[in-house]
């Protein structure tokens, strides 16, 4: 059973507007949460992460919010750009991601319209 769920398989957004991607998890032992971005024919690349001791982490246009009580996290991209069109995977681990296995969601395909 998947412990990390991304319930929206796709998202279409106008260039310049905000993209909000959602992710839910069931395992209360998860301590680290990451977002990866994947273009076709390439491997996933790390985007941004957050540990469970924080509720927000920001890196340029990307912000991740964590709500531990709801077991929910979201990724905000502001403003959205055409180069942001990709598949975004939410992932979680019970310890430092370098040393623990990652559990991934099914992914959300983002399309940014010009």
């Amino acid at each position, binding site marked *: 059973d998947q412990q*990390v769920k991304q319930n929206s398989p796709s998202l279409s957004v106008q260039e310049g507007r905000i993209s909000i991607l959602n992710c839910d998890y069931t395992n209360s032992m998860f301590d680290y949460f990451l977002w990866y971005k994947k273009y076709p024919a390439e491997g996933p690349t790390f985007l941004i992460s957050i540990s469970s001791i924080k509720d927000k982490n920001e890196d340029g246009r990307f912000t991740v919010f964590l709500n531990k009580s709801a077991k929910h996290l979201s990724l905000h991209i502001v403003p959205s750009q055409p180069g942001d069109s990709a598949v975004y995977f939410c992932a979680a681990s019970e310890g430092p991601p*370098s040393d623990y296995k990652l559990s991934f969601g*099914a992914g959300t395909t983002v399309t940014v319209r010009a």
Partner: protein
Amino acid sequence: DVKVTQSSRYLVKRTGEKVFLECVQDMDHENMFWYRQDPGLGLRLIYFSYDVKMKEKGDIPEGYSVSREKKERFSLILESASTNQTSMYLCASSPRGTGFSYEQYFGPGTRLTVT
């Protein structure tokens, strides 16, 4: 820059064949991982290795084995390929411990088709 390379981008094999997928990383990482990616399921961990000659089962190890004889190389072996092993296979590596960077770095993937 971290580089993770996989031996083939595309591979077509027949049912029952033994298949080797090779992964090499050039950053002296201790940890290496094999995932498969399927539509609607995301990435699922097959096997991982924390050190040379060490291996641990992931979430879906059935039908697969691995080999890590050298630190930089991690091989995934399909002993007898079946059509349900048609998938995108992704290798990843990471340094042990948090340090300044603690994500996993992925290779470009191998699209395997078993007919």
